[in-house]
Every structure is written in C-alpha cells, then in structure tokens.
C-alpha cells in the first residue's frame, strides 16, 4: 500500500479537513468480502459516511466538543508494530482471563474459556448483533458508523451462569498510528453474572474506536470497569492545529446495554490522558425494574478534551439508577458531561439519582456539565445535582494545620476525589495503576 502524504493533500485539495480525512480513511480501508454480518455492516456504514464530515459543534450532542483532533490521526488502518505493545503489558494476576484485542486475528484463539463463558453461537449473533445499539437509538451515531466501517471482527461471548473469573479485555496500540475499531457483544443469560475490566492504552497518533453491546437477561449481573489510559505527548496548552507529529491519541467509546427486570448493571469508567475521548454509555431498562449504577471519572490537562454523554432510559416501572460522574480539569483542558435520564409515563416508581462533581484546577480549564432529565411519569424519585468547584479551602487548611504542605495537601485531596471512583473498579484494576494515571503522574515501573 502506498502511503499518501495526508496533510498536504488535505490542505491543497479539500476545503473541509474532516470530510477529507474521512474520505482518505474510507479509501485506504480494506474491505471484507462476501455478505457476512460484518461485511454487510461495513458496506452500510461506509455508504453512510461517504461524503460526510466529522461531527460538528453545530450538532447539539457535540456542542462543547471539538472533534477536529481526529484529523491529526493518520487516516489509515492502525499500523501496528509487531509484538512491541504486548510485551509491555503487566502479567495478569490469577483468576483473570485476559483477552488481547487488536481488531484483527481471533482473540479467543487458543484460549480456554472458564465454565459459563463461551463464544456466542452464530445464530444468536445474527439475531443480537446491533440490537442494543438500535434499542438505545445509537445505530446511526457517527462514532458507531465509524466503528462499523472499520471493524473487521466481533468478539461475541455468552455468559450462561455466574463466572468467578474476571474477564480482562485489553487493547494497547503503543506508538502505532492509525485507526483501530473493536466491536464487542456480551450476552448474559438470566441469572448469569460476570465482571469485566476493559483496558485501553495508547501513546501514538491513534484512534481507538470501541462499540460494546451488552444484553442482560432477567436477574443477570454485569460489573464493567473501563480504564482508558491515554498518554499524550507533552505539548503547549495553546496548540495550533494539531499535526500527526504531536497528535495525542483519540478514544471513541460506545457502550450500549439492554437490561431485563431484576438485572444489575454497574459501569465504572476512568479516563485520562487522551487528546480527545468521547464516551457514550447508553442503558435501556427495557421493562424497568432493573438496577443501573454508573460511576465515571475523567481528567483533562494540556489541551485535552474528554466528553461523557450518558443516557439511561426507563421503559417500564420500578427502575433504579445511581449515577455519579466526576471530572478534573487542569491546564487548558476541557471536560464535558451530559447525563440524560429519561423517565416516560410507563416508568412509574422510578428511583434515579445523578450527581456530577467537577474540580476546576486551572483558570484556563473549562468544565461543561449538564444533567438532562426528561420526566413524564408522576410517581418518581429523581434527584440530580451538579457542583463545580476548586479544591475546598477548609479541607486544604485542615491538612495544612497538620503539617502537610500545601502541594501535598492538594495532591491528597485530588487522590481522595479520584479514589472514591477508582476503589469501585474490579480489584485487579490496581495492576494498571489507575491512580497514577488520573493524577497525571508517571506510573511506577
């Protein structure tokens, strides 16, 4: 394949860099043959994207989020340096099943799955693929289309009973440049349970696109941790138009879940270090009467942007939601949170609570946080709150009055702020040193 000097091409021949980038990407993508599920999806998504641009800030859902950082990523499939990244991963602890995701090759190849966890049979895959996205109204979302256009593979698993092993899904693009798409589907049978830790790491000019669908049968339980560790190259906070030489990694993450009654879903996400990260956790309680617990923690520094758009829809009575989203904004970073909670007429006796807590650590950083509650049912409990503050002076003074220096006191408070969420990740997450990531410190060797 010939590598086209993308930057020059863009400037000279096309007025819209996003449109050019997308066209270049579509032109370089290999195509799946035949009319398999994924091949059909590819064709459909590529058609949908043809002639399109990137999400624009004129669209309400992207109002605060500048997607142009994407154009600094080489418009090509991820050029992976063979074997380099994998060697750098910490060894998995006992009782953890690690699957390394690379967007190509079969991650289940040669893997002995624990009892209760199996590859989803093709009939069920045909039936359920895309269902949770559709149900959550996300099938046509730009990041989902991009994923569909690129993905050449799907990891689909059925959970048929409680599985004590933690499933660790790891992708590390290292210094590689280009676009990678991961597509996942988890089907939890009634009464089944599973804990998952999804880890994404990237340093180079790469875009990692993830679409994960989860379907929870009656009484099923899914605890899902997401640890997204980007590593941006050091660059001035006031950046000119990004170029691929100093491009920071991009993460686009959609998680669409459908819950049956009595199921329990817990999503705990910690995100930092990406030039641009957009997370969209979407949950549908199909007949209500389920329990959803969302915890989010995101940090921006430099000129980074992290945007979480969550949406929980109750389509039946007696549903519960407990959501806490936290953000730290330093440097000239921008943190966005939009939390939609939709309670239609049939969702009586819904009990939902949403809290957004943001810490503004610099004068140049920016935080946009917006709870978005649509409540039609009249017999519900829906609480929401949002705070944006600096570090609390009384907390700082208390620590200082015990001999702890101002800098260390501030660090302790920030750690405390993060720990409240990080402590809820499945225990093996400690291996990845999530606190160092969130504090913007280099992890210990």
């Amino acid at each position: 394949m010939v590598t086209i000097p993308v930057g020059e091409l863009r400037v000279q021949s096309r007025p819209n860099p996003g449109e050019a980038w997308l066209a270049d990407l579509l032109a370089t993508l290999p195509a799946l043959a035949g009319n398999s599920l994924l091949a059909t999806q590819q064709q459909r998504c590529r058609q949908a994207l043809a002639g399109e641009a990137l999400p624009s800030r004129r669209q309400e859902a992207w109002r605060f989020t500048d997607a142009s950082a994407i154009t600094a990523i080489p418009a090509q499939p991820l050029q992976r340096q063979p074997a380099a990244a994998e060697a750098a991963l910490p060894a998995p602890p006992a009782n953890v099943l690690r699957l390394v995701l690379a967007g190509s090759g079969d991650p289940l190849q040669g893997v002995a799955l624990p009892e209760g966890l199996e590859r989803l049979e093709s009939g069920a895959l045909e039936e359920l693929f895309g269902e949770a996205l559709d149900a959550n109204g996300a099938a046509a979302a730009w990041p989902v289309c991009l994923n569909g256009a690129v993905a050449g593979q799907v990891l689909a698993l059925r959970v048929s009973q409680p599985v004590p092993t933690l499933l660790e899904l790891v992708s590390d693009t290292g210094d590689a440049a280009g676009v990678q798409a991961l597509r996942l589907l988890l089907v939890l049978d009634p009464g089944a349970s599973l804990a998952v830790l999804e880890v994404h790491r990237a340093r180079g000019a790469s875009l990692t696109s993830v679409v994960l669908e989860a379907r929870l049968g009656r009484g099923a339980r899914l605890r899902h941790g997401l640890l997204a560790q980007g590593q941006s190259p050091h660059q001035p906070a006031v950046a000119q138009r990004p170029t691929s030489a100093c491009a920071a990694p991009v993460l686009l993450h959609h998680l669409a879940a459908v819950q049956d009654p009595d199921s329990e879903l817990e999503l705990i996400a910690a995100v930092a270090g990406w030039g641009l990260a957009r997370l969209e956790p979407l949950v549908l309680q199909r007949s209500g009467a389920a329990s959803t617990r969302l915890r989010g923690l995101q940090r921006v520094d430099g000129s980074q942007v992290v945007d979480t758009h969550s949406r929980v829809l109750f389509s039946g009575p007696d549903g519960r939601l407990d959501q806490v989203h936290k953000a730290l904004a330093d440097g000239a970073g921008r943190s966005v949170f939009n939390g939609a909670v939709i309670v239609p007429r049939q969702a009586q006796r819904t009990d939902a609570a949403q809290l957004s807590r943001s810490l503004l650590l610099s004068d140049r950083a920016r935080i946009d946080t917006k709870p978005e509650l649509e409540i039609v049912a009249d017999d519900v409990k829906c609480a929401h709150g949002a705070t944006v503050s600096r570090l609390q002076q009384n907390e700082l003074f208390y620590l200082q009055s015990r001999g702890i220096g101002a800098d260390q006191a501030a660090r302790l408070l920030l750690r405390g702020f993060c720990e409240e969420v990080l402590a809820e990740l499945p225990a093996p997450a400690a291996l990845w040193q999530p606190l160092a990531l969130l504090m913007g410190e280099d992890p210990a060797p």
Partner: protein
Amino acid sequence: MIRPDAPVLLEICDLRASVEEQPILKGVNLTLRAGEIHAVMGRNGSGKSTLSKVLAGHPAYRVTGGSVLYRGDDLLALQPEQRARIGLFLGFQYPVEIPGVSNLEFLRVATNARRLEQGLEELDTFAFEDLVRERLQVVQMDPAFLERSVNEGFSGGEKKRNEILQMALLEPLVAILDETDSGLDIDALRIVAGGVNQLASADNATLLITHYQRLLDVITPDYVHVMAAGRILRTGGKELALELEERGYDWVDVEIERLEAAELEALAAAQGSRTPAEVG
C-alpha cells in the same frame, strides 16, 4: 502547673485580626509558659475561635496588628503547615471530613512531617501502624476508624477523639483546643478530656477554648481568661470559671461598655491635648 521560671512557649502581644475587613480581635495579650493549662471562655462572637484560627494560620483571617512569638520566634510569618511542624496544634471545633483520603495515611503523612522537622526518622507504614495502635489507647478509639476516610461519617464524639489522636501523634508543644467539648456526651467528654490530661506535661502548654464549665470540671486550668469583644477582659484562676458559671456573662457587657467609653475618652483627650501644640 504554674512555674514562673518555666520557658515561655507562646507570647501573644496586642494581637489584632480581621475577617472580611471586619475587625474581630482588638488587642489580645496572652502568655503561655511550659506546663500551663489556660482556658479561654466567652460568649459566641467574643473572638475565641478567631484567636485559635489566627494562631494556626487560617487564610481567611488577616492579622492587622500585634505579634505572636512562638518560643521567641515570629509565628505569624510562617505558613500553617510550618507552624504545625514546629509544634503548634489546633484541635478543630468542626473537624473536616475528607472523603477518599484514608485516615491512616493522613495520620502517617502528618506524623512524618512533624518528625522530619524534629530531626527524627520518618516512619514506614509498619512502624507507624505500631505507633498509632499504641496512641489509639489515649482516646480509646476503635482501630476500625483508621481504615475509613478522614472523619467521614464519624459521629461528633468520634471526630473529637480523632482530633486528640492526632494530638497524641504529633506531640505538640502548644495545643489549642477549640470547643473540644462541644457536641460530646458525658462519656465522650470524659474520654477526650482524659486524653488531653494524659498529653499535658511539664514541657507543653494547652489552650482550651470553651463555653462551659463542664470541660473544666475534668481538665483543671491554671488560668482562666474571659474574652469579650475581641480582647481578654479578665484573667483569674479556676475559680473565675465557677464565677462565670454562676453569674453568667452579663457583667461583661457592662465592663466592655465602660472600657470602650474610657478608650474613646482617652482618644479624645489625646487629640485635644495635641491640637494646641500642633497649632502652636
């Protein structure tokens, strides 16, 4: 214990301070020698708590005049953390809850900051755990509180015990306890006061800030000071506290009024006597 030859630990001289441009302290004088226990009493708004916060270096209070010497050195020039490291301790009236920060780690970091200043070796987690378990006995505190976040979800009594535990670990030379008795039931009061008594020695000094006599039933002060309108109005022995308990604070108003009238008069006289000279 009063020893006239004991070294002076804290010398407050004509201390004046404001919060949000509102003068609160209007000339406080107070000297603490090693071995002494002082009680400062007074009504709400008399400036007692402000005094404690100014001494500890709270950033919301601005010193507008006077001086404070700690063992002969200027205390007010130091950052709050430096004051703590050299041996000044403030027990908070309302200890602050800090979610997500482990109490044990907080205590260890604080203890090591003080030890470093004293030229002692820092304690690793194991050595510190031994020390903290020993000091827990001072306030009969359940070790389970070490595993929780700092003061988070602690009852009023537990918070105050945690304050005295910190004092036991930091071994201050001057301990200021701001309304340590507030919000305590009689058993908790006895335990907390017992801790303070255990920690008081011939080498350190304690400044108790309180509303009520009941704390002074269990901790015997050497001096009692009555504070009003930002200054110390009267100083006496422990019997002064009993007198206050009996008479209340109403006499204070009369005295303050008289004092302020006398001051105004003196001011006017000073201006009056100066003017002809200036003219001449």
